[in-house]
């Protein structure tokens, strides 16, 4: 048992570090570049960085060479990401494309399409988004209502998608729509990729609880998609979507702050009954709980990395990640505001400890418990896929979609 790289991994890490030192600025104690710039400037800079990275051979290294990668082990991509995290470079614009859209194109698109679309995706020249969720289809995404019908060589799409990250700056999107409502819900779906600049696509930002707008609603009105942009057979949309979801990036990144560190720092600085709050045993107990959760996640990642580094498939322990970290974030945020007592309601960063990080994340954290699988769905997945418990009884599985009762 040790926490060291193998000699090959250490050599690769040193190479990556040297390249990053020569090409990027180390992260400093100030807002990251993505937060300093406005959205357009940020995207332009991110595209430039992604191209630099790709030219140097550090983008999608673990992908097959036939799809623009280098057939290198996953651990090299992770080592690169770990090292890059120490530098102030713009990231995040390409994670949906490279994490979900790339693999699905690699599996289902024609060779010509792969040659056309994958290289610009890797270089960040074209940005991709994912169009699955709908107002009436969240956890039950197979219940989606967006319709498509064949018209000559095209398909015509009508409906609404929601929670689409980056739709407004994306060039392409992957889309699931219903071609036949008389079939059971999983069987009437077909999968496409679509030009996001197509006539009839209307994109509106969603205003979240915290006032920010990280997602969009996307409306489709008679949008035409050539049949050549269908991925998989007609009616195979659900299987293609499942493949996409299984390709979601391995959760080896860190959860956003505040965590026990920030809570501890705050507790040392705040007074409670005339003493530093950190001397209060109730406060100590809470911070200890979060430490145990945070380190449990950290060491669980180390177990996952160990498996990857040995070329093995990671165990199911990784599935606990978001359930633990999302609730922890919400609890730490709420606790931080409490420590500030009556003043804890202030959100003006210039007046508050940690620039109001606790208040901001109090408003942001509810979303994390929902996005990418709710706490409840993730517990179902753990129970069914990891613990082997029986599946839900599904009353809507074998009946025509059009006969399934709907609420609001």
């Amino acid at each position, binding site marked *: *048992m*040790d*926490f*060291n*790289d193998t000699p090959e*991994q250490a050599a690769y890490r040193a190479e990556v570090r040297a390249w990053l030192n020569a090409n990027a600025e180390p992260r400093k104690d100030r807002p990251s570049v993505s937060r300093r710039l406005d959205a357009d400037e940020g995207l332009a800079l991110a595209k430039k960085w992604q191209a630099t990275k790709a030219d140097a051979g550090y983008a999608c290294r673990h992908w097959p060479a036939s799809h623009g990668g280098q057939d290198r082990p996953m651990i090299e991509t992770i080592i690169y990401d770990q090292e890059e995290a120490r530098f102030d470079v713009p990231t995040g614009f390409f994670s949906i494309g490279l994490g979900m859209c790339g693999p699905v194109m690699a599996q289902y698109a024609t060779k010509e399409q792969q040659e056309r679309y994958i290289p610009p995706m890797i270089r960040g020249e074209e940005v991709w988004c994912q169009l699955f969720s709908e107002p009436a289809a969240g956890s039950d995404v197979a219940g989606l209502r967006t319709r498509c019908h064949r018209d000559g060589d095209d398909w015509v799409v009508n409906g609404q998608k929601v929670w689409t990250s980056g739709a407004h700056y994306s060039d392409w999107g992957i889309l699931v729509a219903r071609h036949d409502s008389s079939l059971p819900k999983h069987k009437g779906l077909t999968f496409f990729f679509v030009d996001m600049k197509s006539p009839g696509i209307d994109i509106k930002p969603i205003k979240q609880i915290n006032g920010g707008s990280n997602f969009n609603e996307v409306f489709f009105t008679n949008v035409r998609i050539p049949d050549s942009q269908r991925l998989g057979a007609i009616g195979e949309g659900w299987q293609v979507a499942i493949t996409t979801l299984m390709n979601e990036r391995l959760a080896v990144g860190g959860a956003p702050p505040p965590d026990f560190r920030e809570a*501890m720092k705050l507790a040392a600085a705040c007074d409670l009954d005339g003493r530093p709050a*950190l001397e209060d*045993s109730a406060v*100590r*107990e809470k*911070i*200890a*709980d979060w*430490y*145990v*959760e945070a*380190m*449990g*996640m*950290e*060491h*669980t990642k*180390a*177990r996952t*990395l*160990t*498996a990857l*580094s*040995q070329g093995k498939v990671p165990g199911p*322990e990784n599935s*606990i990640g978001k*359930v*633990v970290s999302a609730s922890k974030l919400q609890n730490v945020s709420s606790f931080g505001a409490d420590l500030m007592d009556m003043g804890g309601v202030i959100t003006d960063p210039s007046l508050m400890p940690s620039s109001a990080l606790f208040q901001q994340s109090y408003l942001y954290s509810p979303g994390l418990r929902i996005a990418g699988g709710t706490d*409840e769905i*993730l*517990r*179902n997945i*753990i*129970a*069914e896929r*990891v*613990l*082997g*418990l*029986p*599946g*839900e*009884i599904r009353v809507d599985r074998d009946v025509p979609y059009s006969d399934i009762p709907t609420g609001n």
Partner: protein
Amino acid sequence: MNFDFSDAQKALKQQTRGFLRAACDTTVPRRVLEDADEPFARDLWQQICANESPGIAIPEEYGGIGFGYLELCVVAEELGRAVAPVPFSSSVYLAAEAILQGGSEEQKAKLLPKLASGESIGTFALSEGPGQATEANLQATLRNGRLSGTKMPVPDGDVADLCVVVAKDGDGASLAVVDLGGEGVSREPVDTLDPSRSHARIVFDGAEAELLGEAGQGWAVKDRVFDRAAVLFAMEQLGGADACLQMAIGYAKGRYAFGRPIGSFQAIKHKLADIYIKNELARANCYYGAWALSTDAPELPVAAAAARVAATQAFHFASKENIQTHGGIGFTWESDCHLYYRRSKLLALGIGSERVWKDRLISGLEQQEAA
């Protein structure tokens, strides 16, 4: 990155699990639980000693086999899974560690071989009754090589041959070794939450006691011993927690209500997913603690406390929700659920409560911060 046990350690784990499955199914802890005249499973203890398990981490020069602490950790997890009714933790994690940490060369050479072979059973006495024992409130006193005072509950104190005692000594505390068969020692079993592991009330009345380490410096040694024991206790708790999860899964799949297995209801699924989540958090913290213990890392105090807290929470949660998953049958004496429920509280308190360990954890972080 190699944050995993080696193939040889995994093989030892499988071998230990197989051995305990045959030699210590749940009828064995139940037998000890129900029979007031059998303080521990002597037949099982003899087999464990024949396997040389007590000496697994004790260096060869002191009669052990000197494998190391990662090996001891995998054995501990399996003993916990089996709810083994033997004095292993008292003798190995506490008495032998105290002698290794505090003893002179001569004391190690004299005492450890007998603990390694199992010829002697050792234990450790700190608590003097309800309430947290501190250096300031100790009543048992060491004076001129004689110990007086009362210790309870002393784990396996009714069957142990020797005991490392923490006692007041001048302005501080000292550790001393006492022969429990000697003059001035009287002992009787005390009833506890988990009768599958016996405990005693021991009265020392001028008993001969041999100082272990420097006079007055015993509290720091005790802390060091407890840090090391915390990882091993945590591994036992982890094994127990996993056993509860497996038991609950098995029942939830086979028990039908409302025309379907209860494991198909989300109320049960989410409960069992929560057990799994806590167990995995505990496992990750335990492995890190095992690494810190095996390498004597400076991170040990914090790593041990985190493992201890996580595993205490996991076993407590798993053992109580296992009963809940079983419903009425889980509350009966004949069900095995209570073996784990009892053991979870016994292990949770054995070297200090969750609250105490949380406080040690934060203190350790404060010290790291200050350094």
